[in-house]
């Protein structure tokens, strides 16, 4: 009996020792975990529970001058499959097919057993919600902002494009990328045991959103210009066509069209279409440039408004070359008449009186061969020979707009300078940048004066000359009912790149004009490059387009009529 009790006690002791040893080992492990593994485990848990999330900002909108949306960003989804956890592949396939998504089996086999097999891009929210409601395993969604242009082709060159990550590549999208792109914010989140996200902060979307950029371009004026120009572009089967509408007093660009164009929302097939010809392409302006020589001659006092010139009966020999006019005029003609009949001989004589130094100085003063500073990327400076390299033919050539390369924006800005009583303004397309979060507006985009080029008196004489050119001269087709119009046609021969001489087949027809003639509210430039199928003269090609645009634009802007209808 005693022996039994002793055995029992021994067993109890052994058991107690075992239990105590286990607890002791556990204690040791606990001490090891708590003290020695403490930081390592903390790191692992931290990684499991805490989540750093980069909040992707929504790109700011681009608006027109009346706050209509021209470019905006919306959330679109990429649908992907996690092939490792799909339970019923046929059901997944059927559900996706019902929602307009076709699964290409080859694509899945190419990816193999992967957690991310993208199967559809740019899917909208309704479809995503429909698929989510089916509660199928193995389908995932990834959201991303994509750029949308609700007006389609309208303003494509001005707005530009973005890449797939939303960075501006062309146009306003590129120029104002830093304002539009917004701020990336990193936020902290926690995940519970079931993977649910726990957030301790509410993030206002407006804080992240990029700033809105408001243009001074009016979409209605842009539409008018685009529509009329597109019709002419098709009619004349032209190589290129440009139209710019500018407010001369402020320098604001109200519309700018370059054709051919593209649709920013769809795939761009020809990368050359991205080029904004209105600011990047240089062309010989032809007779529209005559106004520069006359302005300089009047301003320097070397020629008076009342001076008369002999036009050599339409043939003038200079430096071994014969310059011809379309009109054979025997009698003396006034300065105004020279512009009315667009006489090359007349302008050459004026330029000769002016002299090459003054002519060169005024070409530069009007802003040619320098950047206008317009807030669009890719502006060209133009082409002009250094004065030391001018030969005996350079001055006469440039006086009627050949042997010089200008951009459309430079030319319209020079005409706007005359319209603005001789003050050259900086052309611009953005008038405001607005921060939606703190409601602040950036007003750095104000009208800027570059310099006074000619006096008010000279500018008024020039406006009268331009008015006469429309009333009695080559610009007749630019007339519109109820308004006085001032302007100048330009038919420039293009250089044949093979023969390196002026072509007799390829021309650039242009017209630059202002309405009303003496107190202009708008200046419009129309350029048709290589019109085909009949006439190539600016008076029959460009002037009617100008008239069509001017009529609708003045009506839309409510410009007061100044020509009494008889």
């Amino acid at each position, binding site marked *: 009996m005693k022996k039994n009790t002793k055995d029992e006690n021994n067993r109890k002791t052994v058991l107690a020792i075992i239990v105590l040893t286990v607890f002791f080992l556990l204690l040791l492990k606990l001490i090891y975990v708590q003290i020695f593994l403490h930081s390592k485990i903390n790191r692992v848990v931290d990684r499991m529970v805490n989540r750093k999330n980069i909040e992707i900002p*929504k790109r700011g909108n681009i608006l027109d001058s009346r706050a*209509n*949306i021209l470019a*905006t*960003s*919306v*959330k679109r989804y990429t649908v992907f499959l996690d092939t490792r956890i799909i339970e019923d592949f046929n059901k997944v396939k059927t559900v996706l097919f019902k929602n307009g998504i076709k699964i290409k089996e080859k694509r899945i086999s190419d990816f193999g057993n992967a957690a991310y097999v993208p199967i559809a891009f740019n899917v*909208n*929210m309704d479809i995503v919600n429909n698929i989510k409601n089916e509660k199928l395993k193995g389908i995932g969604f990834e959201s991303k902002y994509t750029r*949308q242009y*609700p*007006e*389609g*082709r*309208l303003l494509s060159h001005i707005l530009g494009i973005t890449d797939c990550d939303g960075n501006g590549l062309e146009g306003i999208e590129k120029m104002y990328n830093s304002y539009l792109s917004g701020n990336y914010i990193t936020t902290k*989140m*926690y995940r519970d045991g079931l993977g*649910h*996200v*726990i*957030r*301790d*902060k*509410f*993030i206002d*979307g407006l804080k992240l959103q990029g700033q809105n950029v408001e243009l001074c371009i009016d*979409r*209605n004026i842009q*539409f008018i210009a685009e*529509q009329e120009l597109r019709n002419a572009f098709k009619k004349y089967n032209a190589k290129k066509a440009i139209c710019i509408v500018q407010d001369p007093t402020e320098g604001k660009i109200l519309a700018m069209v370059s054709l051919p164009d593209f649709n920013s929302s769809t795939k761009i097939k020809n990368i050359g279409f991205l080029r904004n010809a209105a600011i990047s392409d240089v062309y010989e302006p032809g007779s529209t440039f005559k106004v520069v020589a006359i302005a300089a001659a009047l301003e320097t006092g070397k020629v008076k408004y009342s001076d008369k010139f002999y036009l050599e009966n339409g043939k003038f020999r200079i430096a071994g070359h014969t310059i011809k006019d379309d009109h054979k005029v025997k009698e003396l003609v006034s300065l105004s008449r020279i512009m009315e009949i667009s006489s090359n001989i007349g302008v050459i004589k004026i330029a000769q009186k002016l002299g090459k130094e003054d002519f060169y100085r005024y070409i530069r003063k009007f802003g040619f061969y320098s950047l206008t500073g317009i807030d669009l990327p890719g502006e060209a400076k133009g082409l002009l020979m250094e004065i030391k390299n001018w030969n005996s033919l350079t001055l006469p050539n440039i006086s009627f707009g050949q042997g010089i390369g200008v951009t459309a924006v430079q030319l319209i800005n020079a005409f706007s300078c005359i319209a603005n009583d001789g003050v050259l303004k900086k052309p611009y397309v953005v008038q405001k940048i607005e921060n939606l979060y703190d409601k602040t507006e950036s007003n750095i985009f104000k009208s800027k004066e570059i310099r006074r080029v000619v006096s008010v008196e000279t500018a008024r004489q020039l406006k009268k000359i331009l008015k006469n050119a429309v009333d009695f001269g080559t610009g007749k087709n630019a007339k519109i*009912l*109820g308004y006085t119009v001032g302007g100048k046609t330009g038919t420039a021969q293009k250089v044949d790149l093979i023969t390196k001489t002026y072509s007799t087949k390829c021309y650039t027809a242009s017209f630059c004009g202002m309405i009303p003639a003496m107190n202009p509210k708008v200046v419009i430039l129309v350029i048709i490059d290589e019109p085909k199928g009949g006439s190539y003269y600016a008076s029959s090609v460009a002037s009617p387009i100008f008239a069509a645009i001017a*009529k609708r634009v003045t009506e839309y802007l409510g410009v007061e009529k100044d020509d009494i209808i008889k």
Partner: protein
Amino acid sequence: MYKSFLLITFIIFSIFVYLWQQNISTRLAYKVNNLQVEYDKINSENDILRLKINSILSLEKMYKIANEKGLLCPDEKSIIYID
């Protein structure tokens, strides 16, 4: 004895308050997250609707519809201005 009872009660009460506020803050965090999701969703829907409105009202579309309906710009001579 009474003092010990009070101390224990105080400790238990403090633990309760601590756990209670922890619980509430977690619940609020869940709620904040749900609201954020809802807010983002509404914002997205708003953006899409605004885009739809702008696309419907695009000038090219309106012009096409006007043409289909036979609406034309009136001739200048057929407009009478009344002062």
